[in-house]
């Protein structure tokens, strides 16, 4: 046998001459079926419901400006959600999807990473954009699918994407961003960037095969990224206990060899600290980190959904009491950073900004008809040019049937100068 080993070693020089995939495994003489109780995973909590810091070590975890920026972004997100659910009910947009109750998980994690980090989301993470400075008008341009939307109005409302803010364009299919985040992070590493990828998804999406592919590949290929699971209890109507039987999503991270932390997702400070430390760890060690944010989807799945069909008002009331914005509010009061008048002013101003932006954006034209064939390929291929030419002739013949594009010349002029 030793001869064989030697000849093999000569053919393929390998620093690891003998692998042992059982090196870490010890033997036992007892039949022992291990279950999830064997390794319970607590969640990091730094603020109690009264807003008191539970671990003095984190008193200086952030400065006043960061805490207030995060808090205002949470408020902005809440107001945006309320406004747009209203707009959907008024028939002004076709669809909306709120993140009520999950603002701390989303905004807290975003605040914990750097602007140069890529963010890939599922579709309920508008708070990440709000924190990064997306304006009321930018939000509205996407939701009204108008010519000013950088994604050219091609996707349903809330499918944001903004290159300048390192926010990857949202795709509806669930979990597809998880292996993409691993690949993007690998690219960041290979090009020597001091940056990671922060990838959000829900506990339902974690059932997709892409979750397995993404976490395993990120671990094996040493990708500096954060996988952030918003465990909000529901995937549309399906409760988490019909989604999986394990100890949440966090327990899976261990199985993939991914460093993992479970966090109280309604605790903005804990989310911020966890994301910040996860980022530092991922960059230093070139590896992924999994964060499971334990939270609750106070909102309906979307405006197409009615949660009264699958959960009780009592259950919702319990979580309404755990409102992450309320907890952050109390914390800011405790540390003396809250200026109530300034907050009231911000809320009033935000409401007014959003309404003005809505009224502006809904009046903007859709993208020119020619954009229907751009971006399918890098260049407009001849068959698409033919299809566009035929379509243009048809629209010209029946302008009244295609009002959005036939009246574009006038509307385009109106849209000019507005950026």
């Amino acid at each position: 046998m030793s001869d064989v080993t030697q000849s093999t070693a000569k053919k393929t020089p390998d620093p690891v001459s003998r692998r042992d995939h059982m090196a870490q495994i010890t033997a036992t003489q007892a039949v022992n079926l291990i279950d999830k109780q064997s390794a319970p995973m607590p969640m990091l909590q730094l603020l109690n419901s009264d807003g008191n810091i539970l671990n003095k070590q984190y008193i200086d975890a952030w400065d006043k400006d960061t805490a207030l920026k995060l808090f205002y972004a949470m408020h902005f997100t809440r107001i945006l959600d309320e406004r747009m659910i209203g707009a959907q009910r008024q028939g002004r947009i076709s669809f909306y999807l709120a993140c009520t109750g999950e603002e701390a998980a989303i905004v807290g994690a975003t605040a914990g990473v750097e602007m140069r980090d890529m963010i890939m989301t599922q579709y309920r993470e508008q708070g990440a954009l709000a924190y990064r400075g997306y304006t009321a008008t930018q939000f509205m341009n996407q939701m009204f699918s108008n010519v000013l939307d950088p994604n050219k109005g091609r996707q349903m409302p809330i499918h944001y994407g903004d290159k300048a803010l390192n926010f990857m364009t949202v795709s509806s299919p669930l979990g597809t961003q998880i292996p993409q985040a691993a690949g993007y992070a690998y690219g960041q590493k290979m090009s020597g960037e001091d940056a990671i990828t922060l990838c959000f998804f829900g506990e339902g999406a974690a059932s997709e095969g892409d979750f397995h592919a993404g976490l395993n590949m990120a671990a094996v290929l040493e990708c500096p990224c954060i996988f952030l699971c918003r465990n909000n209890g529901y995937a549309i109507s399906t409760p988490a206990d019909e989604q999986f039987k394990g100890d949440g999503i966090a327990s899976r991270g261990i199985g993939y060899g991914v460093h993992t932390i479970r966090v109280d997702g309604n605790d903005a400070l804990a989310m911020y600290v966890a994301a910040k430390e996860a980022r530092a760890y991922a960059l230093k060690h070139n590896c992924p980190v999994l964060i499971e944010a334990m939270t609750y989807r106070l909102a309906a799945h979307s405006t197409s959904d009615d949660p009264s069909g699958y959960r009780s008002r009592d259950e919702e009331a319990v979580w309404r009491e755990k409102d992450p914005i309320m907890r952050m509010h109390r914390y800011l009061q405790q540390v003396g950073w809250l200026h109530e008048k300034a907050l009231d002013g911000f809320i009033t101003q935000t409401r007014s900004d959003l309404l003005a932006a809505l009224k502006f954006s809904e009046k903007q034209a859709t993208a020119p008809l020619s954009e229907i064939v751009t971006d399918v390929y890098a260049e407009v291929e001849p068959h698409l040019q033919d299809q566009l030419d035929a379509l243009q002739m048809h629209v010209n013949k029946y302008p009244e049937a295609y009002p959005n594009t036939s009246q574009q010349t006038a509307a385009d002029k109106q849209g000019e100068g507005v950026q």
Partner: protein
Amino acid sequence: MAQLNLLQAVNQALHTAMKADERVMVMGEDVGHFGGVFRATSNLQSTFGKARCFNTPLVEQGILGFANGLAAQGAKPVAEIQFADYIYPAFDQIVNETAKFRYRSGGQFTVGGLTIRTPYGGGIAGGHYHSQSPEAFFAHVPGIKVVIPRNPYQAKGLLLSSIRANDPVLFMEPKRLYRASVGEVPEMDYELPLGHADLVQEGSDITLVAWGAQVEVVQQAAQKALSHGVSCEIIDLQSILPWDRETVCQSVIKTGRCLINHEAPLTGGFASEIAAVVQSECFLHLEAPIARVCGLDTPYPLAHEKEYMPDALKTFEAIMHAVHF
């Protein structure tokens, strides 16, 4: 007879199938207590129990893999994929497993009891991922049948046939018509044969072929053409695979012209297959090139949905072009 919409007809077919055969089981995301995001599976769980109508984890490849195994064991799973746009993670299970199960085992094993239900199609402001019409992908795969109803009567009869067929069936439901299409549906248990087209309207100048939600679009176009003195024959294919070549070709031999309309993109769409067969079978009878009025070769664009759609006006123009060729 009761007036039902298309969703209610699907729901009634599922109740009928589950009542008649305890091997019929309904599975998918949110199909349990909630009754599905469109309510197509309402009250199935309360009537037949959680073991026969159950929520699955959110994993399409798992749903189809599980359903393949269940069907191989002898059950008749009716697996729901919430939107046809989300069927692709299950593509491997359908294309390489469902469709080849019987052939690769020399007929020893089969998943012939499997039915896959999925809402498809646009016109509902659904953008890229709630609008697609992927029937041609699956029609390309030998071993799975593809069925699309256009109204409640067809939906119930074709779904019952699909569930009871000895072949796996992809049953695609035009979601634009879920509540919009209302019609009389017999309460009795009835089946409509797979592989047969439905002659919707007789005419003499051109044959219009469509399926699902596009049938009413070509009907509108035919109405407009009639006011210009053009008589259209309309055929609803119902079954995309196998498709009723005889009915279509006999009609084209009579009218001398053929137009096919589908929502899916033009290139490689199922119209191409129909056009090739019609050209081959009816060559000497054709008085104009076969016309295809289809979606553009682009992803489904939200802002330009109206322009993208193969609508009645585009169909009318193509009819008139063919007639005056």
